[in-house]
């Protein structure tokens, strides 16, 4: 599909959404694949609504997301307010035209976009409801959290990536598994699954992933229940490592799985020092070889700050950080939870099942792998012990979920199998030498 057609689809979606909201529509849900221009679309729509006279509240998940959105909104000419808690220090890079307000009584009464964290909005008693309450990264917000925001507005816009990590549930929530509005589930999931809301609901999907190389997009599709295209052109992105380098395959934009043999007695627990050291070896090899970053016609040398590393376990991240210390702090190491919303030209991700020979439902949950496999603009290396394919093939999923709940383990297992299978089928799995 050509980019012109995709651009038309983006425009059409924004227009349809705007029309819906301007006409009094009360509930809109937009599914966004990773790097699909979600925040761009949100900023466009909200600033247009503000220009039409709307007074809007926007909720983000973290303070840094709030700051980022404020900076983008203010450039569109909207009166942008950063609604802060008393202890939050205003960052230096916040646009000076963004109004910082800590007292709800001072919130503007006229057209504006007021941006705060969900945590802030949930505990604020608003004197004057807004025309619209929008939520960014909405799939990270639980239904219980949305309930607390009922004071804010009659109308809701939820936008986010359904493939990413769902709200963390740390308590025994079995009592509510069969509740019609389960408080621990992601808010948009409850809305989308509710047949009674279909007549009042606008449901849309952003049409393309813009962040990933064209060739990488198909690998993340198993994590989604809707289709989307690749925005980048074929062959437009990659990491070019000169010569017949062992990582030359990165040049075609597809993910590359690099494996270490699994010891006959099984992989290490918690911390895989050899794997962490291998990450250092890989970074060193790529940078020392003078790798070039190629994105949409522009080429330049790859540097340490272009690389991001992710592993699901904090203990492993600490070991990775040590192994990658020569490139710190430019090279960021973090969990997928903290990588959400961020991107790098080259990502190195430890496969979530590396070292896991007996996967649990938690291990097979796809959100973390989806996040780790969708941060890259030009290249992705999955580093893992080589048992993963066999572990997945041997795994027999049990559907233990409460009655009426979706089979997330089965779905997760299937998605993992298809993801790994695609890497194998396309010759993208190789042993680290």
């Amino acid at each position, binding site marked *: 599909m050509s980019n012109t057609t995709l651009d038309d689809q983006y425009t059409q979606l924004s227009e349809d959404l705007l029309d819906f909201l301007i006409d009094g529509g009360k509930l809109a849900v937009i599914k966004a694949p990773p790097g699909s221009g979600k925040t761009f679309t949100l900023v466009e729509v909200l600033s247009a609504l503000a220009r039409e006279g709307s007074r809007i509240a926007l909720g983000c998940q973290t303070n840094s997301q709030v700051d980022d959105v404020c900076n983008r909104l203010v450039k569109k000419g909207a009166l942008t307010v950063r609604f802060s808690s008393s202890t939050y220090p205003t960052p230096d890079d916040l646009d000076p035209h963004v109004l910082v307000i800590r007292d709800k009584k001072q919130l503007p009464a006229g057209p504006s976009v007021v941006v705060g964290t969900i945590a802030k909005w949930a505990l604020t008693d608003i004197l004057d409801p807004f025309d619209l309450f929008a939520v960014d990264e909405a799939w990270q917000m639980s239904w219980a959290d949305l309930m607390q925001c009922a004071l804010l507005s009659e109308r809701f816009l939820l936008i986010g990536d359904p493939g990413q990590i769902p709200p963390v549930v740390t308590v025994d929530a079995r009592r509510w598994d*069969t509740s019609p509005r389960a408080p621990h589930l992601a808010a948009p999931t409850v809305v989308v699954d509710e047949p009674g809301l279909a007549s009042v609901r606008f449901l849309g999907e952003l049409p393309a992933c813009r962040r990933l190389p064209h060739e990488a997009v198909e690998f993340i599709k198993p994590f989604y229940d809707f289709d989307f295209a690749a925005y980048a052109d074929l062959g437009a992105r990659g990491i070019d490592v000169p010569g017949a380098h062992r990582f030359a395959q990165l040049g075609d934009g597809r993910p590359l799985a690099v494996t270490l043999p699994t010891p006959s007695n099984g992989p290490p627990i918690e911390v895989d020092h050899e794997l962490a050291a291998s990450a250092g070896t890989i970074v060193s090899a790529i940078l020392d070889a003078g790798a070039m970053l190629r994105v949409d016609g522009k080429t330049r040398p790859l540097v340490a700050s272009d690389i991001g590393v992710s592993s699901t376990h904090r203990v492993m991240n600490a070991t990775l950080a040590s192994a990658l210390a020569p490139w710190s702090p430019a090279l960021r190491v973090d969990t997928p939870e903290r990588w959400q919303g961020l991107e790098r030209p080259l990502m190195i991700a430890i496969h979530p099942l590396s070292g896991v020979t007996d996967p649990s439902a938690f291990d097979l949950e796809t959100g973390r792998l989806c996040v780790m496999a969708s941060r890259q603009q030009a290249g992705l290396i999955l580093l893992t012990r080589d048992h993963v394919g066999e572990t997945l093939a041997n795994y027999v999923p049990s559907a233990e979920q409460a009655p009426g709940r979706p089979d997330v383990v089965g779905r997760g297992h299937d998605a993992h199998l298809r993801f790994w299978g695609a890497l194998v089928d396309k010759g993208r799995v190789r042993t680290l030498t």
Partner: protein
Amino acid sequence: MSRREITKKLRAWEAERPIPRYDTLHHAIVSPDDALVVTFVRMAGESRPWGIAWGTAASGPRIVSVPDGRVRDDVSSLCAEFAEDLLDHLRVHNWTYDPAGQKEDTSRLRQVWLPNGAHIEMLHQLSYTYSQTKFGGANQDILRALGRVAGWMFRETARKGSQHVVSASGALNDAYVFPAQDVRTAHLGFQLAWLETVGDRTHRMAAAADAETMTVSPTLDPDLDRRVLSDLVERWQLVRRDGGEASSTAASIAAILEPELVRRWELTRRAYSLLAANDRPVNPGVRWLIEESQAEFWGQHQRIELRLNDPSLGPAFVAHPETDFHGSAAASRYLTYEAADEAFVGRLIHSDPELFAEAVDAGDAVRGEVVRVTDLGTGRATRPVWVLRLPPGVTHRLRENVRLTPYGSSGHEVIVLDLDVTEDALDVTLEWTGLKTRPLSVGLGAKPDASIWVGQQVAFVTSDAADLTRRRSSRVWSAAKGPGAWLTHGKFPTQIEILDDDGRSDLLVDDVRQIVAGEPA
């Protein structure tokens, strides 16, 4: 399983016996008079009790059973008898001369000890059967009261830190690491054999394997059912159907069920006694957990009981056994459970070095050197700020805006302002936000702005957001007045009709109908 847990299991194997898991006990152990031990047996394939044994740890058990666990009326009578003592023990309004009030001293906690999770599930079954029953004749009121309190007890066990209902097997697993497969340590007899047998590992293992052959679950050994009970019960049914005298057959059945009940009861009492006589102290933070549990009992049960008896006191709804259908009820309870979970470790960690060590391993606590102390306050206001230096590669959950509490000095609080990663260290900038002018209870015992902290090693644990979460829990009700409530507080009534074998129907009125339409349960 973490590295720490694996090491503990190996140490237990080396010690040839179970070893303590933590330095303190994390659960209240009440006096023998205040600990009611309850065990059930039920017929395989059925949900209701076939027999119940109950009695305080001080008094010994009362054993009551019925010949056929499928005869509804007989089981109702059994449960009514049990209910009298249970409701009195828990000081439930209307069933005792000394009902629990809104403010109770922590010393007045009453507990119910059951062998394991399978027995706790029987409480859920009682809730389904009786909480809104239309049957039971003269016993209807007490059966409904039993159903309601059993439902509350069952739900309460899912709330972290709850103190009223104790799974003996769970409590032993919390207190000890067993040198055995985890799946086996769910068997109370197995656990007690490991703990109480005198001798080396071989002796203990053999005793444990032996104990394991006797089931502790509410259902009986299928072989016992096959060889003995099946025929007896059938005989009893036939005699009764023919209008004959079945008491001797009934007595034979009771004679088989009694030792089964007694065995389960005794195991539970032994677990209670072992923990009561433990040389480890109960963690001081448990006092807070008791207060919270008593508040839950008042708010979620006792207050409802009062209102059910006297509607002028306000509205009350009986929780549905399956779930909270009403959105506000569901969200509010969910957030209450979250708050309990957040607060739990924070309450206990300051008095338990092993729990603290576990938190360090998991990244929920950090220890570092104070390298700088400044005061950014102006005038008389003080704003102490520290820079804490952590070694490189340490596991941590630190992020900007995360709140921490100094280990051993609960009440104090800092917020993380900045993280600066260098090659050989991680410098964390912390601003004091809680008790910032009061001396710490650890280390030098100085105030946060004192420069003598420089060079000192100080540990911090993640501070909980439980108070905030509790506020969120009540907000879901008040948010129902908001303009967005059409979406967030939508209502889904569910009427479930249960037909019994005789075609009689029993209805469970869901919470939505009760709350919205005022339909009585």
